[in-house]
């Protein structure tokens, strides 16, 4: 039995909101595979892990687990089912920008052909595990899609399993913690042992008693040496935000502009750890749990879905006609974004499809009431930032703290003027990053230019010096020759 304790979080989330959770809608005791879809879509640049390149060509036969995309970060994505590459073309993707992007289209053949990796045998070192995570395509399954291996620094003290799942409607993590508890615990233990981490914290909101029970019984069976510190959080949004979870469980404020890992903390989604456990056994990520929910779906539920499955296939799996929906939110009501082209395939970061009709009241002018500031979990003043952004002054918005925004959209939920604040901030943050990148490039170019000027100057000076030396030498020689001539004369 692993050593563990359960405690209530002693800290209170500052700001935040208590939204209606609607979690009962999709909560089910079991979680089954959906039928394989007719085609699978894998965006080459937007599967997570940065822009990538295709490792397969049209006509190639792939097995379940065959690498098909390699990203800049090294992350490899694999085919989630065996089949044939029928097309590599621009295709709709699940992305907030709603654009099309180069994608590999695979037609599954229904065979169970597998192309897995060799299982790792304990003991293995951290580098072996990092390589395995790269090969198996492990990235943050909570939604951000950050390559997991990049978080695994040596000298880390704590691993936090983020089981808060504070986003309303979502039950994917809850379901995973209930049906795949052992994998999650095993993944966490393996990671901790290879990085020499002693404490594993499980942050979980108190609205998931079944998951908590499952974790407890799994820990009783576990033989891990790690100490598990289970922290029960109030059901308050956004307690599952990485920085907030770190603060709630450890009292550490992650400084602006740095990641939790720089404060010695690794935060992982339960799904990521379960996937890591399977990767150690040789199985790359081919499937994930997706919550299908929303009042517009006939049969909301959680399903295990092959990566690349088109959205329309999942809507049908929830007994709903895709044509009856105008758009669907990817990722929940707070942080999700709408997708209207249902041919787009789900990626490793797609945790939820939310179908519901919402009436957005018309926007009215900001009256600076400051309701948004009272719920902002990072203590920003959204009213000031949106004023700057609407006035076209990105710099002022950044000065007000735009880069600290976690885009949780709690401000949207309380704005009496119904201003889509979070959308403004999402756009503004994107522009700010773009601008910073441009400035960075410009600075680099300037440095190169200045270095070149210096070099040219130095060369010119050297030339001048050489010339002067040569002249002096010649003059010397002439003088000597003259003297010699005079003497001889």
């Amino acid at each position: 039995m692993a050593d563990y304790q359960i405690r209530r979080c002693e800290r209170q989330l500052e700001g935040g909101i208590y939204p209606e959770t609607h979690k009962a809608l999709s909560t089910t005791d079991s979680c089954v595979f959906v039928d394989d879809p007719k085609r699978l879509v894998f965006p080459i640049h937007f599967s997570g892990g940065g822009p990538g390149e295709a490792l397969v060509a049209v006509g190639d036969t792939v097995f379940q687990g065959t690498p098909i995309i390699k990203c800049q970060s090294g992350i490899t994505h694999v085919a989630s089912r065996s089949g044939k590459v029928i097309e590599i073309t621009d295709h709709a993707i699940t992305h907030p920008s709603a654009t099309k992007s180069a994608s590999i289209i695979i037609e599954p053949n229904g065979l169970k052909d597998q192309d897995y990796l060799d299982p790792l045998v304990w003991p293995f070192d951290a580098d072996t595990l990092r390589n395995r995570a790269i090969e198996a395509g492990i990235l943050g399954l909570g939604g951000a899609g950050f390559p997991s291996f990049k978080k695994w620094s040596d000298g880390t003290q704590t691993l936090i399993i983020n089981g808060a799942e504070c986003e309303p409607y979502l039950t994917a993590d809850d379901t995973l913690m209930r049906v795949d508890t052992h994998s999650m615990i095993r993944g966490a233990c393996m990671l901790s042992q290879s990085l020499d981490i002693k404490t594993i914290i499980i942050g979980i909101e108190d609205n998931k008693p079944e998951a908590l029970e499952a974790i407890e019984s799994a820990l009783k069976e576990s033989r891990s040496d790690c100490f598990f510190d289970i922290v029960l959080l109030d059901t308050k949004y956004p307690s599952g935000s990485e920085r907030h979870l770190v603060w709630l469980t450890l009292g550490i404020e992650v400084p602006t502009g740095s990641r939790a890992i720089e404060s010695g903390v690794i935060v992982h989604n339960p799904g990521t750890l379960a996937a890591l456990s399977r990767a150690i056994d040789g199985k790359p990520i081919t499937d994930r749990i997706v919550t299908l929910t929303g009042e517009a779906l006939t049969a909301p539920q959680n399903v295990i879905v092959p990566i690349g499955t088109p959205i329309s296939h999942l809507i049908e799996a929830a007994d709903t006609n895709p044509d009856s929906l105008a758009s669907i939110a990817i990722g929940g009501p707070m942080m999700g974004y709408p997708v209207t082209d249902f041919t787009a395939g789900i990626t490793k970061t797609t945790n939820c499809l939310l179908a519901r009709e919402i009436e957005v009241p018309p926007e009215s002018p900001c009256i600076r009431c400051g309701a948004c500031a009272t719920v902002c979990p990072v203590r920003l003043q959204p009213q000031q930032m949106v004023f700057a952004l609407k006035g076209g002054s990105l710099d002022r918005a950044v000065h007000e703290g735009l880069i600290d925004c976690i885009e949780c959209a709690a401000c949207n939920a309380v704005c009496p003027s119904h201003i889509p604040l979070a959308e403004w901030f999402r756009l503004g943050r994107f522009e700010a990053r773009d601008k910073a990148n441009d400035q960075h490039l410009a600075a680099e170019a300037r440095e190169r230019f200045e270095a070149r000027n210096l070099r040219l100057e130095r060369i010119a000076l050297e030339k001048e010096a050489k010339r002067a030396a040569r002249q002096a030498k010649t003059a010397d020689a002439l003088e000597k020759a003259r003297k010699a001539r005079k003497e001889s004369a």
Partner: protein
Amino acid sequence: MIKRPDYPPADTQIVMRSVLIALIPGIIAMTLFFGIGVLLNLATAIPAALAAEAVCLGLRRRSISPRLNDLSAVLTGALIALSLPQAAPWWLIILASTSSIVLGKHLYGGLGQNPVNPAMLGYALMLISAPITMTTLWVDPLVTPDLATAWLAYLGQSNDAVTGATMLDLYRTEFRVLTAAEASQNPLFTQAHLGLIYGYEWVALAYLVGGLWLIYQRVITWHTPVGLLVTLAVVCAFFNFDPDTATPVWIHLTAGAGIFAAFFILTDPVSGATSPKGRLWFAIGVGILTYLIRTYGLYPDAIAFAVLLMNFAVPMIDHYTRPRIMGRSSSIRGSGGQS
């Protein structure tokens, strides 16, 4: 008891409506002590404000109904009506109300854009343009006028028998030469009103009830009223060396617009400071200025001028009262270069 909501109201209209509801106790108390003129003020100022709002929106080619429905113009009209003398003639009310909306609000771009408090701008404008009308037509709470007298006053034929100087004015003029003991012999003090010594206190109490309800409903926060009232009390108490010449603290707090302004005027979110700390500083500033103008200025009451002056200081207050952002070692100060 209604459960205290977790957040401020979810719609601008509900915000405005809550403030209007919170004014009701004050309106009732004022009508009881100062007569039907209070209601005449309201019945004139609110339609005038709505009409001005509609005309301005039309001229600015904006959709009219959403803005009329948000009740912000109604609230401005109500606030200016309650600020004006109770025996004010109709034209003064209309002028004050329309200039609040036109000059105080739409000239700057309408709802959410006004740099100063619209009602106080209209009030101050009237005080400068029509000083006699604005200072002499206050109803004496001892002689609450009947309907006919109020109506005549409304038409412009005010009756000296029912009007007089306000309590704050008395302390600046008549009571100045009296000792505190002599001043307390004034009928305003000797004739008790329902147990309290003079009508103003009941009105202040009624506004206090409405204001506390607003805090309970999270429409406003405690920072503004506490900031103003505590500052006013502390400053008055500090300078109250000679009780025979100084206006007592209690009078400062209850006789003028103190309570009304603390909960209903300074709390205008648009023209006030935006962070809780900023609201506190804003209110402290208004408190100090109010005392200074009441004591050394030309006018008996001073809230309007104090509010307007502090409104102009709001951008600076906002720049120095930002909360510390999570993950930063200190709060961001200053305007951040170009603004």
